[in-house]
């Protein structure tokens, strides 16, 4: 078990959330709150960086969906960056790869 850490930062594209560790039913709520609490102006992006995500269960997927809905409601977009293979498989199976904007590299969005 790896503890979950969510680091929020403002980047040129909008709001970036770095999600690291295990995302499951015990802590998925934290991701929802991080997405809701952050400042996300219309026309910008919620960029969720999953490069350090170790595990994601269906509650984690639910939190990603909630974050997506929140971004869309705010007139913003959402991008998933560096999705690990098991989670990508899960997104694929559930057809969510068609809903999420999934990118391997988002240096330009993150201003790196």
């Amino acid at each position, binding site marked *: 078990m790896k503890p979950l850490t969510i680091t929020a930062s403002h980047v040129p594209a909008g709001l970036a959330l770095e999600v690291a560790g295990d995302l499951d039913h015990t802590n998925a709520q934290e991701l929802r709150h991080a997405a809701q609490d952050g400042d996300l102006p219309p026309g910008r992006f919620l960029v969720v960086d999953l490069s350090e995500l170790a595990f994601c269960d269906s509650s984690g997927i639910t939190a990603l969906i909630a974050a997506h*809905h929140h971004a869309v409601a705010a007139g913003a977009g959402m991008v998933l960056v560096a999705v690990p293979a098991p989670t990508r498989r899960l997104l694929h199976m*559930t057809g969510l790869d068609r809903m999420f904007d999934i990118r391997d590299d988002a240096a330009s969005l993150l201003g790196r």
Partner: protein
Amino acid sequence: MNAGKGGPGGGVPGTDAAFSALLEDSAEDLYESAPCGYLSTLMDGTIAKINATLLGWLGLSRDQVVGRMRFGDLLTVGGKLYHETHFAPLLRMQGHLGGIALEMRTATGSRLPVLVTSTVKKTDGGEPLLIRTTVFDATDRRAYEEELLRARRAADEARRQAEAERERLHEALAVLQHSLLPAALPDIPGMETACYYHTASASRLGGDFYDLFPLGGDRFAFFLGDVCGKGPQAAALTSLTRYTLRAAALHDPDPVANLSILNTVLLDRYTGDDPRYCTAVAGVLERAGDAVHVHLASGGHPPALVLRGDGRVEHLSTRGGMLIGVLPSAQFVPARTTLHPGDTLLLYTDGLTEARTGDNRELYGDEALESFAAGLAPARPRRVVEALTGLLHGFGDGLDDDTALLALGLPSRTDRTGRTDTGSTTSA
């Protein structure tokens, strides 16, 4: 010792004077005026000697008592019963008895709670001779004990109620859980069906569901799925999902349309930051001579497997079918196949493929399931469900999610025994 604050003499000034008063206290005076009651009785309870303190408490004179009353006569009737059934036999057996709570009845009729200790005095030869008893006024202590008893009774009652409440809740949960699954699969002429439901936690309502029901004529509809989350909210979602799919299937023969209706219903019901969704496979079986046509659609659900009569295993790809209840524009993907005698269609939820196995607790996975199925094929539905149930049991605590299995098939010609076989197993 508080000799300086006034002994039996009371009011004697100075420590020395009080001390001498104490020394002058005779054994007789101590007996008579002790702060507790003393009495001695014959073995049959007849009172032979009693001190002034006890007589004072009881409001009786020595002449009324000595040689005329038995110890039991000093007690309330309830105390007398307790004395005869417990106190006296114990004293006979043990020779000593301490700290027994009894109630005495005074001359004015009031009750005096007391604590009684008795010792049997024996002759040199060991024969019981008389009983010596001390009696302590226990009014205050009894009041306190009654408080304790009251509190204990209240606590007992509260516990009983809590247990009854829990029992009711348990029953309600069981009823609710049962309402989410069919009581029994319907009999489909010429087909064999089998199902299994594993509940990860008896106290939490599960989120998997399945159903199989007639549409009229030679057609039957089926579905199997998994809602997000657990507990009452998941159960409510399961209920909505199940009845929506049932109604939709009766209304429209197209499984894709059925899932779209469910998608609309879920999006309408659950909005905003609390998305609630499910994955499902829904389909229709239609008899065509010796074969059965299967038309199904999937939304975000693992692919169904077909174990062919010749030993091959296929998965029915429904790639791209989306979670149901997430997006208004969600797409659902259809698939078709035909079952011939000896073929079995297997639907399952991801509790099976997401189970953790081995020392590294790795996901069991789709490939492992396909290999397992390949090892079984050809196999009739009951055999498939039995084997998978065994596999699930083998996962032990690696299986931490609900799991539903539904297998539908046509027995091969050699399997047929002349009767319709509709094996069905459920387990919780």
